[in-house]
């Protein structure tokens, strides 16, 4: 039991069976919010009790006044702390894919329809906190870090939304199982590049060659997702609209990465290796295709292609594909 607050909140969560994912947007209302004294609050109340006992013993009315004034301030601060969080709306949460071991950053869009809020603290369990203020009516996107342990679709841990503002004597918090996800690619592991050419002739027959990077083959109209490096700025400046240069790789140089072609039994290791090869190929601007089992991604190049390949790697064996 490291932290009594997290222990108690965990117990409450278990009791209320809050394990269902909360769909966004969500407005934090009474039923999502808990409030308890912090450790400083407990020290404060111990001191308040000591003052009260002293005041009773000495029949000191000024002591009573001080005790009740401080008691009143801390009591009032409960509502200020509560109001600082109550009514906050979490609109959306999304995250850019990361590799295993990297920190996933969930971008959470929050909206404040109420009064100004200060020192709001967002954090996933046992991760660093993101602290920010919100003006009245402000909408803001904040990033909250989350650890990644394995590839696949990361469903975030419990998000703790908390505040101790203004006095730090009470902590108001809400625990949310956000219905969000982050794609986690395998961890790249370096090694020799192993390509598979053993594709049937039929696959290449009748084509002048797969799309590659070597030979300029003409211009095509730009479509969203095409690699930006290949944009033809010259034709754009001539007023011909956005066009894209098309290259052709030589027949023999189209490389395929094949999961089954890699030696070894450990699937995760093989995925990590291929992940690394994809990044290498992309860095060297060499078109590549990916074959996993009987699923094939045609050779290509560019961000979109890389992402779809990595996505494929991330989701193998996870029932989503």
């Amino acid at each position, binding site marked *: 039991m490291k932290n009594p607050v997290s222990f108690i909140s965990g117990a409450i969560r278990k009791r209320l069976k809050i394990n269902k994912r909360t769909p966004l947007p969500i407005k934090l209302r009474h039923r999502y919010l808990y409030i308890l004294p912090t450790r400083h609050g407990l020290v404060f109340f111990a001191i308040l009790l000591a003052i009260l006992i002293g005041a009773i013993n000495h029949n000191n*009315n*000024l002591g009573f006044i001080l005790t009740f004034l401080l008691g009143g*301030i801390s009591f009032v601060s409960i509502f200020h702390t509560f*109001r600082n969080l109550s009514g906050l709306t979490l609109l959306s949460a999304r995250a850019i894919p990361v590799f295993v071991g990297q920190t996933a950053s969930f971008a959470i869009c929050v909206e404040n329809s109420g009064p100004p809020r200060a020192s709001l603290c967002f954090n996933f369990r046992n991760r660093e906190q993101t602290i920010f203020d919100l003006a009245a009516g402000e909408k803001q996107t904040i990033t909250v870090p989350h650890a990644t342990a394995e590839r696949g679709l990361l469903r975030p841990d419990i998000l703790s939304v908390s505040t101790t503002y203004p*006095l730090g004597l009470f902590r108001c918090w809400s625990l949310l199982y956000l219905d969000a996800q982050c794609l986690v690619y395998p961890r790249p592991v370096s090694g020799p590049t192993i390509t598979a050419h053993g594709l049937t002739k039929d696959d290449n027959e009748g084509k002048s060659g797969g799309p590659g990077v070597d030979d300029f083959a003409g211009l095509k109209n730009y479509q969203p997702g095409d690699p930006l490096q290949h944009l033809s700025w010259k034709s754009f400046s001539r007023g011909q609209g956005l066009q894209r240069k098309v290259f052709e790789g030589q027949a023999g140089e189209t490389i395929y990465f094949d999961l089954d072609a890699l030696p070894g039994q450990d699937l995760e290791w093989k995925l990590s290796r291929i992940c690394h090869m994809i990044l290498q190929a992309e860095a060297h601007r060499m078109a590549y295709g990916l074959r996993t089992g009987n699923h094939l991604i045609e050779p290509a190049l560019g961000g979109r292609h890389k992402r779809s390949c990595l996505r494929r790697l991330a989701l193998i064996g996870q029932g989503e594909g």
Partner: protein
Amino acid sequence: MVPDRRTIPILAVVAICTLPHFLNVAPWVVVACLLLWSYTLAAVRRNWTLPGRLSRGTLAGILSVLTMTTHEGFTIEAFVALLALMISLKLLENTSTRDRMITVILCYFLLVGGLFFDDSIIATAYMMFAVLCTTAVMIHINQGKRGLLAPLKLSVRLMIQAVPIMLIMFLLFPRIQGGLWGRTPVNSGRTGFSNEISFGAIARLAENHEVAFRIEFNGEAPAREQLYWRGIVLSEFDGSTWRRGNDRVKTVPSLQETRQQITYTLTLEPHNEHWLITLDLPMRVSFRRAWLLGDHTLYSWRRISQRISYVGESSLDAKTFGQEREWKKGLQLPEEGNPRTRELAASWTRETEDPEEIMQMALTYFQEQAFVYTLNPGTLDIGTKGETTGAKDLIDRFLFDSRKGFCEHYACSFAFLMRAAGIPARIVAGYQGGTVNRYGGYLVVRQSDAHAWCEVWLPAQGWVRVDPTAAVAPERLQSNATNALPAGEMISAWSFFRAGPLADWLEPMASAWDLLNSRWNRWVMGYSVAEQLDLFSRLGFHLNGQKNLAKRLGIFLAAALPLLLLAGFLISRRKKEAEDKVASYWMDFCQKLADIGLARPPEQGPRDYMRDILKHRPDLELSIREIVSLYISLRYGRQAKDEDVRHLRILVKNFTPQKRRVR
């Protein structure tokens, strides 16, 4: 470890909370605190590396030992000094939010120490100010931004919201008579005379203008010459000092022939001694923890360390004969010393045997010889002829050589003369006179009104009050000591304000201020069990008997809990009201349309609703368009302006659609 700029507000708060204690703690503590603060400030400014854990711990140890040895035992002063030092030391270890929070929370604790020394209005106001600053710094610690203005504003708001809670708790929280257990004594010097008097003891008080007590008379106040406030009776003399003595007669002699009885309420400021002050001669007093002694003084078994208030009944003209033991004690004198005084008394007894005549001769002696009433009698240790005659013949030297003295010189010499002449005599120390507050109508007696006089036992009249000072300086009874003294002797700020050219301006202000203090002491600081029972009976709870603490606790809880919940409800509700005003006007608008048969389907938004209505009632287009567009901009726009909300209210109020007439 390098200090943080955020330490500076905390340092300021520590200083604010420690300052009032500087009067009560040992001087070296003040110096140590100031040094620690300057060091912290310099370290923050210059980015010095702070001392490590070991040196801090060593310093803390040294300071604790020093505190315990320089203060007498574990008194409140020692506690306050230790706390102030440790908090100042803690400033050097201000790296995390946790450190900062603990430092600030301890500041609240430090504030409490001050309550034991002073509970005046000013002290209370200062405490409020200190709480305000401390709370602001606490907010500052918990916010990300730097500025101190916003925390101060919020702190004021928190305090304003907390005040009603404080008042209710203060009035209803059950008070316990006498406290829980013994009290730590407060050693800070309470002024007043002690239980012995020697030359110079009362003159020392002459420039002390602290209030000793306040009196409200039920009915007419007696004449000023009769306002002798009885404190203690001293009947043992050792040649230089008059003492109370340990042999006390507990049987109270009955008063005879009382005609003029006076009832009054006296509020006594704490003087840390055992006696109560009463108007001469007391008959009974409504203070349970004190008893009347044979010498007509009131003795409390606890030291008066808090302000107390009691109703007294006194007789101005009663006769008391006392017990034989009492007046026999009034004849005791040292074996030798003051031979010239003894010779003077013997010369009188040779002339007559009537004690009353001898008494008159003594008073005449004081009047006819060149005695001077003065605060500065000069030293009496060396006689006029240059020979040192030892400390025992002080009365001789006063009566025959210097002849300059304050009231205690006259009282002590007179009592000695009487005893030497075989007439029982004793000294009474107390106060004489007082100043009437022009607004409150009560009487204020200050330490500077302290006085000593004599009582002489005459066979026919019993103990008779004789004031030899009055024979020398009759003005003393007409006004206060300051005015009876020779001109120029009391050149203090006080006498300047009292008698100087500003007096006419300042006197009303001083009176009003004293009235305020008196009311504060009586109603706020004096609120206790009796007042609480009175309040409860006014609220309809009649609690009698001894065992009402549980009932009072019950009432307190039953009343406080709903009130607290109500307070919380009000605080958390406030912002929502503003938010929902727009909605409520919109509802009014929809209701008005529903009344003419154009109700809004629940799923319809404002735009669709408007479109549907306009199909039926194009004649209402102008007003409906204005309301709907304003509503949309208020509800979905970026910022709702107050004036727009008001405008919407007016538009909706003036919107009165008529039903279309059936043609």
